């Protein structure tokens, strides 16, 4: 099966949840469709949704919640 990656569209801080008291957008093992939100990237206090441009099963996240990320950095690995 082909490996695919979801890349960060922007530099900033990555969040897996819409808010600290809410469940993560996606967990490992979840199916991901094109356009699904998988997280947020905070750039200078503004929050941007990260939408998947690929579909498949989420194998694993490559960064931790609240990690600093660069534009183009792989955030998650998909297969299928």
């Amino acid at each position, binding site marked *: 099966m082909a490996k695919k990656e979801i890349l960060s569209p*922007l*530099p*900033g*801080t990555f969040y897996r949840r819409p*808010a*600290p*008291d809410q469940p993560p957008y996606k967990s490992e093992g979840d199916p991901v469709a094109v356009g699904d939100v998988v997280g947020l990237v*905070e*750039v*200078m*206090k*503004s929050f941007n949704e990260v939408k998947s441009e690929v579909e498949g099963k989420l194998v694993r996240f490559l960064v931790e919640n*609240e*990690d*600093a990320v660069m534009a183009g950095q792989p955030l998650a690995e998909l297969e299928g």
Partner: protein
Amino acid sequence: MAIRTLLVANRGEIALRIQRAARELGIRVVQAHSAADRDSLPVRLADAAVEIGPPPAKKSYLSIPAIVEAALRVGADAVHPGYGFLAENGEFADACEVAGLVFVGPTGDTIRAMGDKVEARRLAAEAGVPTVPGSARRIHELEEAREVLARTGLPVMIKAAAGGGGRGIRIARDAEELARLWPQARAEALAAFGDGGLYLEKRIERARHLEVQVLGDGRQVVHLFERDCSLQRRRQKLWEEAPAVRLDPVVRERLCAAAVRLAERVHYRGAGTVEFLFDEDSGEFYFLEMNTRIQVEHPVSEEITGIDLVKAMLEIAGGAPLPFRQEGVVPRGHAIEVRINAEDPGRDFAPHPGRIASLELPGGPGVRIDTALYPGYEVPPFYDSLLMKLIARGRDRAEALARLERALGELAIGGIPTTAGLHRLLVRTPEVRSWDVHTAWLEPWLESNREKLA
């Protein structure tokens, strides 16, 4: 005991501003910084620097244990929090004190009292400071809100008791809208501040935002007159002036006296700002909130009074009494500050980190630049978008405006979009020149000038 080594627990232009004040007082400066700020100007210019964590603010500039531990490790005897981050966190002030460090600011109790917007309103009313008609205490049930509405009239603002800085505000124009917005506002306040308490305030339409700079030593309080910050976008200030335009001297005196009364009521220590809404038609002003820190726009007050506020903060924190009396604060001329942010006004103010490819700064008479930028600097994506404050001073407002326009013409920041172009448009706009503005003026103006901003 006078401060000998100061830890600067902030970044960017305000970190440099604090360093400059400290250096003039002969204080040794240690700059706290995240991994993203290793190459920043404040780190380069400090006597020493200490890394406090990874780039995200939560793990560095917002980490109380990391900062306190760093302060102790470098032998600091005081910590200056700047603005934002932990500047208005009572627990941080307490943690410094417990560790034997001087927190450059008010006590944790004062910060908490003013941070609770309902408590602040109560203290203001007690000090005889006019407050916006609204609820006297925090309310949880819609039924109570309806009762308050009967007294305030419409429209009404729903605010979070633990909020501030314009966050989490909703406006209800009728009782039905109040009922609809109430549960949303509660849920949001709970999520954002961990406190679902709300309060209501009558919405004053077409009001100007005035604020009074105060300085206290824990016993006495003086004021440094007022600022007018009515040009705002989404309740974020973009342009600030001192003194306020067309303010009747009698109203000015009442306004400043009210701010001093409130600050005295809480035995205020350090620099603070009491914010008011001002209804120009009636000449009435109403208490909004008190900010218990140095503010971004403090330079305009410094420019008209000749007083170095940050230096005064450090002297007071070191145990000195107020370095001057009220009679010693004499305003002269007019000053205007504009905020140059790393935002693209042509794309709905989208923030835009990146490399400063080139930088040409204005100079000459009456021009002050507060910034930590340098050519080649990489603006990180993790923090506030403020890049620079351009302050123009003149013997009157006309001269300040002319100098501002001239200085904006000399300024050139290459590499990333900024709000400089917006200010070049604003400085030539008739309503800005005549100051026929209020806090809700800028947004519709931006909407109707979209093409010019692109």
